[in-house]
């Protein structure tokens, strides 16, 4: 419609010029020019095209995460999971509306994130969002969602400030923050009898944040960090850092970062003949880590927010359904959260209808909502407070719940 206006404006402008001098002659001239007519027809066609593009819509939910670039594995897993949630609900006969997932790529870059967040938030047909895997991107976009009033649930970014750094009622998060994760991690490790750490973290918000909260958590415990090494996530070679750590001789190497970097560090530890316990964060809870490291993965520890998916009835269904759909990429650690967030949003829409404000308010009232990552309860900042932290250990090339592992039973030993 607006373009019809554009064509009108163009016509108006041309008329205006004509008025400047002899009107009739000009009109004749114009009519005589076939060329001009053609252009006009062309313009009108364009205008029609644009105005015809309005059509009845299904209810749209956006998914935003990194689909290209270095951490796209996590993003693609999340996208598939959200997609799965939508299609499962669409298949169900109880569902009132038809849903459509609009996946957008934030490339894990804040500027692109703001761009696509604006795109989603400004689109009236999108009523809610399942957004962001990278914390820096989420930090940049929360204001955008607030400004446009788009209710979103963060499905992967773990920086506490995303929910706690603002009072925006639109922002929610199903996954826990790195605070809870590291508290549990520190307590657990101390309980296992470890007391000295060396920390390697990548210098992104993810790794650096994890280090910060792990350090905080350790202050309350009788543990000591002997050395900290911030590294570039693109870095290939870590032998210099590891040699330095070798000289410090800690009991545990704490790694704050994502699987690709973690794989390199664990593999290179072996090169230097280091056999310290490798303790990771949620970022390495992925089959990619085990695939990448191979046999060296045995005994690696990691922690993840949320209840163990595989133990919950809905979770089992998720894992099966995901496999049944035959996605090209695995769900990765946060796929379950993306699924849970999408499912929660659809539940809310089913209840209150496709209206952003109603969805926002209803989301804020969420109390003990059952999901595949455990019950979800949002606090006043929209943060899921039921911060179950699951402890994992790699046993025989798969992530095993600590409680179920042979390590917990004393059959194997970490040291």
């Amino acid at each position, binding site marked *: 419609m607006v373009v019809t206006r554009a064509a009108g404006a163009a016509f108006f402008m041309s008329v205006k010029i004509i008025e400047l001098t002899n009107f009739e002659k000009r009109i004749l001239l114009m009519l005589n020019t076939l060329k001009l007519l053609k252009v006009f027809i062309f313009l009108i066609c364009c205008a029609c095209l644009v105005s015809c593009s309005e059509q009845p819509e299904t209810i749209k939910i956006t998914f935003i995460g990194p689909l*290209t*670039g*270095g951490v*796209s*594995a996590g993003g*693609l897993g999340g996208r598939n999971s959200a997609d799965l949630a939508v299609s499962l609900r669409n298949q169900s006969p109880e569902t009132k509306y038809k849903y459509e997932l609009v996946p957008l790529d934030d490339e894990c870059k804040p500027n692109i994130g703001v761009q696509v967040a604006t795109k989603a938030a400004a689109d009236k047909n999108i009523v809610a969002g399942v957004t962001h895997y990278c914390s820096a991107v989420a930090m940049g976009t929360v204001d955008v969602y607030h400004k446009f009033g788009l209710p979103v649930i963060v499905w992967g970014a773990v920086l506490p400030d995303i929910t706690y750094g603002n009072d925006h009622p639109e922002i929610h998060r199903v996954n826990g923050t790195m605070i809870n994760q590291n508290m549990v991690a520190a307590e657990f490790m101390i309980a296992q009898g470890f007391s000295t750490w060396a920390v390697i973290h990548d*210098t992104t918000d993810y790794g650096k944040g994890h280090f910060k909260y792990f350090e905080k958590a350790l202050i309350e415990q009788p543990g000591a960090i002997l*050395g*900290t*090494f*911030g*590294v*570039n996530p*693109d*870095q*290939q*070679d870590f*032998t*210099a*850092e590891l*040699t*330095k750590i*070798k*000289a410090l001789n800690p009991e545990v190497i704490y790694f704050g970062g994502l*699987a*690709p970097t973690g*794989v*390199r560090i664990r*593999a*290179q530890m072996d*090169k*230097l*003949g280091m056999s310290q316990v490798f303790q990771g964060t949620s970022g390495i809870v*992925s089959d*990619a880590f085990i*695939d*990448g*490291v*191979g046999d060296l993965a045995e005994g690696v520890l990691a922690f993840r927010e949320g209840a163990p998916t595989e133990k919950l009835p809905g979770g089992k269904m998720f894992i099966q359904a995901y496999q049944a759909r035959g996605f*090209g*990429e*695995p769900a990765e650690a946060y796929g379950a959260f993306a699924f849970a967030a999408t499912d929660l949003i659809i539940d809310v829409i089913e209840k209150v209808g496709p209206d952003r404000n109603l969805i926002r308010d209803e989301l804020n009232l969420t109390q003990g909502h059952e999901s595949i990552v455990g019950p979800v309860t949002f606090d006043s900042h929209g943060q899921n407070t039921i911060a179950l932290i699951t402890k994992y250990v790699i046993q025989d090339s798969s992530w095993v719940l600590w409680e179920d592992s042979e390590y917990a039973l004393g059959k194997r030993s970490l040291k």
Partner: protein
Amino acid sequence: MDLGFFAQYLINGLVQGITYALVAVGFTLFFGVLDVIKFSHGDVLMLGAFTALALFLGLDRLSTPTWLSLTIMLCLGTLTMALLGALLCKFLVLPLKESPPLNTLLITLMFGSVIRESVRLFFPNGSNPKPFPALLPETSINWGNLNLRLDSVILIFTGALAIVLTHLFIQKTRMGLAIRAVAQDEETARLMGINFTKTVLMTFALGSGLAALSGISTGLYYQEINFSMGLMLGVIGFSAAVVGGLGSIYGAIVGGLLFAFLQTLGAIWFSVPAYKDVFAFTVIIMLMAWRPTGLLADRSAERV
């Protein structure tokens, strides 16, 4: 510092330095013959490693003995990349010969990102890091705090051998002579009856083969490869080639070792090792201010 740790740093740095040097030699060769920078070099390296991995996975099914798969991986991986390099040169680089040199840089860069994205999308589960088989003997000697592994030593020697062979090839063979002639003066070389296109293609094949070799040895060493491994290696290799002096093989070696040395030094010095790149690149900028045409480049005055 403890002597063992010192030796350990030295060995680590040497492995890295040789890898950088291998990449830098490629940059230097391309620049030598065509005055172009081929920025997809790092991604060719990555593709070489992935080709070798795919070969291995195939051979593994046939349960080929280790030494044989290793040889096949090395030969086929290197040859495939050499072919790719030559094709790239023929269809993307040579046609742009008359346009500004930056165009070549950009087109190869985009080609690199096409390679990268293709591997990410079309290699099974390509966006995740892939384990690379440990095919080299893993015997290691512990000597105080030094853990010297046989595979590191083998890789250092292989890398060095590859560079020496490249050098000999360029200095002693007819083809090498042609490459040198083209590098010195294209027109004169043509007048002397040298097949220009063939020589350039050969050089690109050679450089890309070296990249594949360093990709495979990176895989063998770190036992892990990923689709974005070529990005940083490409930039560092380019830096090494420039600091050493474009067009000089010795320069590439010196540049590669220097860069690894700076990074190691930075990692030791700074409490936050990520500063090591800040440090290395700052030193590079200062070196460039001091020696504007690189450390070892031919500094003969421009002909006026």
